[in-house]
């Protein structure tokens, strides 16, 4: 049995540093709690280096009785999660600096990030559920970190939905275990085709429930607007980006590895979920006036596009490439927009962004690149992601879904432009103080993320080859 712990350095770096940070945070005076942030960033960097070494060394393997796979999807997923985590850490610096629970904040981020990494590699239903819990529970605490009324409500809503759908997921795991007499994907793959249809179908749907909750997809999306609106902005960036990466790669692995041969028509189910998610997210975003709520619904619609790749997971061999490229581009772009919102803590509504181009041209530039990027305008990364996902969808036989996604893309343009238009407006100056900025770190993360989002499109040629490689059973 392969029990190679060095293969798990990224996960262990995050979780080990979390413990270390908790201990250090208990003893450090409040003005030196930033040391924990440095530790967290160091952990992410270590994990990134370890991942890069794994990728260059070609050390793909499964460890601990095949319950955890380190393959292409895991490697790229780790890169995206860790890069996004670093950006979230950078944009949080001013928000939590000098806070009485600053160390806890960094520790919770690390724990939840570690859980996300574990979801990506999970090759076993029980492992997946444990990772789900590890990724979720610290996130509930983070949502209520500000301890104000809205934050508490958000955390409670997040927690209740998470607990309900987590239990459903556990029930689904039990049903699949009953159907396939195993929890390992490689064994399920062999056993499920012969299992009773109804059992597998119900088990799959129940398992998906928890994962869709993490991804913020319809019908488990109700927490997204409230948490995004109620939590501090960097947390909002976190919960709308990282859990999605973990959950979508986990669903991809589950469908591709465990259910490939089963008779359940899950491609159609995923296609319908994708269609409903992107459409509802878009429609709800249309007339939002609050920036964070608009972004929340925009992230829901983006999940819809990502689910398209899952619908054709086994029908075409470009699905994985599309999923991973889109995830990377989405993470960079979404974080950049949230970083701008963090940098402008007094601008809450679209109208507050009036005249931003004149006051803060740099931030306005980030908004142009990233909001148009979220639409899928070339040459940003999301364009390449959309191109790959649409190609995969057409190739997988769901042309109607691709056409619907195109229609939705056009519709989404409307609300992104509703935000961009006031940015360039000159007619009336914004209220004094609306455009005061928070600090250097949030701005730096906005610029870095926007640059990444652009580079992923222009230099996408370097990324694409990394994303093709088989999943390990």
């Amino acid at each position, binding site marked *: 049995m392969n029990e190679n712990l060095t293969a798990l350095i990224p996960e262990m770096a995050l979780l080990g540093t979390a413990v270390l940070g908790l201990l250090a945070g208990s003893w450090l005076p409040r003005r030196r709690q930033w040391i924990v942030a440095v530790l967290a960033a160091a952990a992410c960097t270590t994990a990134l280096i370890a991942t890069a070494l794994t990728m260059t060394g070609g050390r793909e393997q499964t460890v601990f009785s095949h319950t955890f796979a380190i393959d292409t999807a895991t490697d790229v997923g780790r890169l995206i999660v860790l890069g996004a985590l670093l950006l979230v850490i950078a944009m949080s610096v001013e928000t939590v600096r000098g806070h009485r629970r600053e160390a806890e904040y960094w520790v919770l981020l690390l724990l939840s990030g570690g859980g996300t990494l574990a979801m990506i590699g999970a090759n076993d239903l029980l492992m997946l559920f444990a990772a789900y819990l590890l990724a979720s529970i610290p996130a509930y605490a983070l949502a209520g970190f500000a301890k104000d009324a809205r934050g508490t409500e958000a955390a409670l809503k997040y927690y209740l939905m998470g607990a309900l759908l987590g239990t459903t997921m556990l029930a689904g795991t039990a049903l699949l275990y009953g159907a396939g007499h195993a929890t390992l994907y490689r064994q399920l793959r062999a056993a499920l085709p012969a299992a009773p249809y109804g059992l597998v179908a119900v088990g799959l749907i129940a398992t998906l429930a928890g994962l869709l909750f993490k991804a913020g997809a319809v019908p488990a999306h109700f927490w997204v607007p409230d948490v995004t609106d109620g939590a501090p902005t960097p947390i909002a960036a976190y919960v709308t980006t990282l859990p999605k990466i973990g959950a979508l790669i986990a669903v991809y692995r589950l469908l591709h590895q465990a259910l490939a041969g089963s008779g359940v028509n899950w491609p159609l189910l995923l296609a319908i979920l994708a269609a409903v998610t992107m459409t509802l997210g878009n429609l709800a975003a249309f007339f939002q006036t609050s920036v964070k709520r608009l972004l929340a619904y925009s992230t829901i619609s983006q999940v819809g596009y990502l689910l398209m790749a899952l619908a054709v997971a086994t029908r075409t061999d470009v699905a994985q*490439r599309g999923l991973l490229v889109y995830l990377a581009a989405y993470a960079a772009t979404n974080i950049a927009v949230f970083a701008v919102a963090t940098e402008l803590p007094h601008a809450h509504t679209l109208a507050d962004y009036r005249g931003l181009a004149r006051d803060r041209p740099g931030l306005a530039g980030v908004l142009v690149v990233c909001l*148009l990027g979220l*639409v899928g*305008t*070339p*040459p940003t990364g999301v*364009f*390449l992601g959309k*191109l*790959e996902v*649409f*190609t995969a969808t*057409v*190739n997988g036989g769901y042309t109607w879904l*691709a*056409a619907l996604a*195109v229609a939705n*893309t*056009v519709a989404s*343009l*409307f609300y992104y*432009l509703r935000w961009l*238009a006031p940015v*360039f407006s*000159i*007619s009336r100056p914004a209220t004094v103080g609306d455009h005061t900025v928070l600090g250097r770190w949030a701005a730096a993360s906005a610029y870095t993320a926007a640059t990444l989002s652009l580079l992923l499109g222009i230099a*996408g*040629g370097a990324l*694409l*080859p990394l*994303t*093709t490689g088989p999943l390990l059973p």
Partner: protein
Amino acid sequence: MLSIVTFLPLLVCAALLLWPRTLPDLAYTWAWIVTAAVDLALVIVLWVGFDSHGGMQYEQRVRWIPGAGVGYHVGVDGLSLPLVALTCLLFLAVAVYSLRETRRVRPYVCLFLFLQTVSLGLFVALDLILFFVFFDLSIVGMFFVIAGWGHGERARAAALKFFLYTFTGSLALLLGFIGLYLAADPHTFDIVDLTRTDPLAGRGLYAGLVLLAIGVGLAVKTPTVPFHTWLPPAHTDAPATGSAILAGVLLKMGTYGFVRIAMPLLPGTWRHYALVITIIGVVSVVYGALVALAQTDFKRMIAYTSVNHMGYIVLAIGAAGTLAGSDAQARSLAVTGAVTQMISHGLITGALFLLSGVLYDRGQTYAIGAYSGLAAHTPRFAAVTAVAAFAGLGIPGFSGFIAEFQIFTGSLASQAIATAIAVTGILITAALFLRALRAMFLGAPRLPQAISAAGVTDLRSSEAISSVSLLALALAIGVVPRWLLDVIEPASRAVIGLVAR
């Protein structure tokens, strides 16, 4: 070399943005004029070294995203080189015209430099995704031009409408491109490779759907009836320079796409649906002309004549796909006429839009009824506008005549009825231009309230140079067209050869 021509404006744009904001406004405009002039000079050098029988030239092919079948592949042939030259010339004219611009000059100049790179990039692109990238970015750039420098709040609505329409079109185009990509083996977006392999030959419905997606995408941009409704408000509310670029360069992206992508890459399907395309062309010709006749707004009228002029191009390329009743020479004549019409329309309509900008600058309105007897106050403006209007209605001696003559001669053999109907478009256009000229320039002098008691200023030198130079070239093409046709004809014969496969 081609990449230098394409990206030079973008480099200057980046340099201007990074430069401290201490420069006076005029310095930015002059930097733009110099850039545009250098770019035009480089294109002239390219033209001199161009071998008209050499097919695709100045090619450059670099791996970009090989995993996705996307490459950076540029080159010019007889179809694209004239359009590249037209783009450079129009941007130079617009730069000179902008010497009098005072509103936020720095972003204005940068936006136009960006647009120039995007437009040039589209015409030299030989990869579908590269083409699409520039196609989309042109929409983004023009959106900001209309929204930022257009006429007030209405401009914002017009810009949004323009963006939504053309962006929808571009996404339809993308779906079509994906369809082509998936059909090719090995999967590729390269136009030259796809032209060679003709992956959709004999694919019936699938090929039809791909042509539908690409056709809709390009038809929105061209625009043809019934996808033209974004055009009049966009033109009416855009600044004069934006309108000139929109009509002169951006509309050509649609028609160029037909000749570069739809015809050679889907030859069988193109022939199959040639009649539909011809009918759309004729409807655009007649409908555009009739609606233009009903306009009371000078700029809106010119906008609708664009629909009419683009209709001739669509008619020609439709006829070029009809093998029955025509020989290769007639069909190649139609394509040559279509490309010449693209150049001619760019020059003449570009000049007309710049002149309508002068009109608005003086009287703050485009309403034809607000002006009367202008010729008495502004003889130079009246003369130049009259020349431009006559050129626009296709009078012999100007490029429009050469283009439309070739289109009709080339299309008559295979699409006699359609061509006969389309000829009425010329009559209506003549009527509407003459009517507008008479109402505005002749008769008892009457001016809008906005003009001060000191009277109306005639054409200034920057305005005159920009519009007259465009008209002079239109005249040159009309009198001695060989230098242009020699470049276009071999390329259109090649296209006809590809369509007849």
